[in-house]
């Protein structure tokens, strides 16, 4: 090798190594934890686990709420089984439900998270397309990608800066506070320390976010800018009928193979919850969904053990509340479905913030029944 090329190569290697070390230390110093990229490969690695699911270890599908609110370690501790988390942030679960319904090998249990504004989004919407993209990628998950996934995860488990959502060149450029052109939609910027993912695709609100009301207000303003507090009405009429019928077809297909489905409405709060009630009146959407699909469902507002949680940014539970919510949800699910889920009688709670205690029948009675 020519001396100049060798020297150039050594300089490049030294500068790059110095940058990587400095970069990692910088983000650790900023308080960023390890967070796994919730990408196609991580999703695919969970999708392949759906064939051994049961009421005690179900498949979870939906949008972000069930990723935050259903605490997998708590579920695992109480049921002895690991749920399979397939929920996708900001997406409708209908394509994933249909995918499971069309998979002849699937005969397990599905817990469907219903966030009305997303669940009832029209066919062909952005929320649906994002889920379809994930589903399209799954059958093409090659051996090479699986090997890369394993190596990638080994690195991600050690290096904070490997975070595609927050710490990439593209994320930094998009975070530049440049004014938008008139008429161009700009995705509002989420607080970088809002939430982090673990390898089981559990998403957790960070301790920094819990402690910082300014960050919470910023997140609330994100929801406002995204229109989540506008109370815009969802589709009705034939569109809604066709949509619910498509869900029913999926549910029926799963049931025909011996599988089970339950809908869950996780808590929301403040103006977000108020807007959801205005835009998607319960009788026209949630109640109709359960009735038309002949499927059990658990709405947080119906049970003292599940109602009354405060969501700091109006839409998701803190990790501590998620653990409490999950422990309380299991007996409610058992009661509503008749399924055996917990390994032992489950501790339930009288309400948010209350100490966990043994399941009390009164706490499980629906509020509106």
């Amino acid at each position: 090798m020519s001396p100049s090329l060798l020297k150039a190569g050594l300089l490049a290697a030294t500068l790059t190594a110095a940058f990587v070390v400095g970069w990692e230390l910088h983000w650790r110093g900023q308080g960023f934890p390890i967070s796994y990229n919730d990408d196609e490969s991580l999703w695919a690695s969970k999708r392949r686990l759906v064939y051994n699911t049961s009421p005690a270890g179900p498949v979870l599908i939906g949008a972000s709420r069930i990723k935050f609110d259903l605490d997998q370690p708590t579920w695992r501790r109480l049921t002895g089984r690991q749920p399979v988390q397939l929920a996708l942030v900001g997406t409708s679960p209908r394509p994933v439900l249909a995918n499971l319904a069309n998979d002849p090998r699937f005969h397990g249990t599905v817990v469907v998270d219903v966030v009305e504004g997303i669940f009832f989004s029209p066919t062909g919407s952005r929320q649906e397309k994002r889920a379809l993209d994930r589903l399209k990628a799954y059958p093409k998950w090659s051996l090479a990608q699986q090997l890369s996934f394993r190596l990638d995860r080994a690195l991600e488990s050690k290096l904070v800066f490997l975070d595609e959502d927050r710490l990439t060149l593209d994320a930094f450029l998009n975070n530049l506070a440049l004014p938008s052109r008139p008429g161009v939609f700009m995705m509002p910027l989420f607080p970088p320390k809002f939430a982090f993912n673990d390898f089981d695709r559990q998403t957790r609100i960070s301790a920094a976010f819990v402690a910082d009301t300014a960050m919470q207000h910023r997140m609330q303003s994100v929801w406002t800018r995204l229109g989540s507090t506008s109370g815009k009405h969802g589709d009705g009429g034939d569109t809604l009928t066709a949509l619910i019928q498509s869900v029913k077809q999926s549910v029926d297909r799963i049931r025909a193979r011996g599988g089970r489905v339950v809908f869950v409405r996780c808590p929301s709060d403040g103006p977000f919850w108020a807007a959801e009630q205005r835009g998607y009146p319960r009788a026209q959407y949630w109640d109709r969904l359960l009735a038309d699909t002949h499927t059990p469902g658990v709405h947080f507002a119906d049970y003292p053990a599940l109602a009354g949680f405060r969501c700091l940014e109006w839409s998701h539970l803190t990790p501590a509340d998620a653990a409490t919510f999950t422990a309380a949800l299991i007996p409610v699910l058992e009661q509503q479905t008749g399924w055996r889920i917990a390994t032992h009688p489950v501790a339930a709670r009288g309400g948010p913030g209350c100490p966990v205690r043994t399941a009390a029948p009164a706490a499980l009675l629906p509020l509106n029944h």
Partner: protein
Amino acid sequence: MVFNSYSFVLFFAVLLVLHNLPLPWKVKKINLLLASYLFYAVWNPPFVLLLWLATAVDFYVARLIAREERPVPRKLLLVISLVMNLGLISFFKYGGFLLENFTALLGAGGIAFHAAKPDLILPVGISFYTFVTLSYTLDVYRRQAPPEKSFLNFALFVTFFPHLVAGPIVRPADLIPQFQAPRRATGEQLGWGLFLLSLGLFMKVTLADGLLAPAADAVFGVPFPVAPLDAWAGVLAFSGQIFCDFAGYSTCAIGVALCLGFVLPDNFRYPYAALGFSDFWRRWHITLSTWLRDYLYIPLGGNRRGSARAYLNLMITMLLGGLWHGASWTFVVWGALHGTFLCAERGVRGWASRRWQPLPAHETAPDASLAPVVYRASLAPPLPGARTLGRLGLVLLTLLLVNVTWVFFRAADFGAAARLLLAMFGLIPDGKPLLTTVDLLKVGGLTVGILAAHWLMRDTSLRQVAARTPWWLLGAGWAAMLVLLVLTQKSSSSFIYFQF
């Protein structure tokens, strides 16, 4: 396996170690061959069978062709190879397209015909390795190359992983001789190979995927007309993306091969500084354009059968070149546009040379027929107006027209292409603004950067520039690429040309 993946880093590291162990040359070649099959099989293992089929058939058919003296059996043997190679690619790549058009044709004639659309997965790289094996059989048939005696050498020529899935499309003379004697990368080759690998990954991961793809995907993905600024930004973003993606792959492939001691042909020479379309095709996907020249345009008669036939041959070559890229009419139109621009350029040059000055002696020399196909289109002196208009003006005009052709290349259908073209030229008054300020700055900055780099580099080579650059500056530039690569973090996304 893609170059921009952790699995490739591991694969390549192990292979480099193996290749540098004191093992017999034959063992090293077997290692390379097995590694190449592994490289390919991890996409979809059954498709290795197709690769084996193509390798075995062409190896033995070429041997028989070389032995056979009688014209008819020789032709029959060639037909066997052509049917096998073109049959495979037709079945996997064009089966659905042909069926769709057949159904439409019957429908137009009032015959209702419904056939289940074949649900076939396109074997990755089939268009590339088919051309590699075809070139070998055709060279042997034309007695331009002897048949390779060693099956191992031939199998490695077809399968050698750096070029296997997206080129450069190698010819027997490019690679087979390199397998005949022991080779190991010199220190210079290893160092330069690693530099090229870094540059190729930077182009692919940081520039193409990280900075340009989002704007291109957004503009080409919406079902409504966008504002002229957004339309231009989207097309320029795709223009930069496809160059950085494909030239990035070729640069990686050349770098990886060089690290192992093998030299692959250049595939790109700063195409966005091309002065006209014939120059563009001497600089863009060079190994494809020369393949089309040698195995399609010249056998069709090239420009030896008169002017009208030369135009026709040029159009046929570019139409089939378009179809090679994908089974869709939009690719055919892309090829047709390139053919039309080449014909127009040829016509203008011919007219100008007759009007103002005679052909230079070297342009009319007997060996001029050996010039590249698309180069044939420019077998005339430079446009007389070039000096006055300025080379830069011609470069920008060429680029403008190339960008128009990219619309058909990238758009999902003709409706989308028409919508975008109308928006680009301001014929849709109420197009929607789509891209953010940051997107526009990224596209604008990178477009200017890519054009400036191509303009400055058009008459030189990276190696020459690197040799003139102080080591500390080269090292700093190399480090900047690696740091940006680390910062971009996108890994494992496919290269655009894999789908072809």
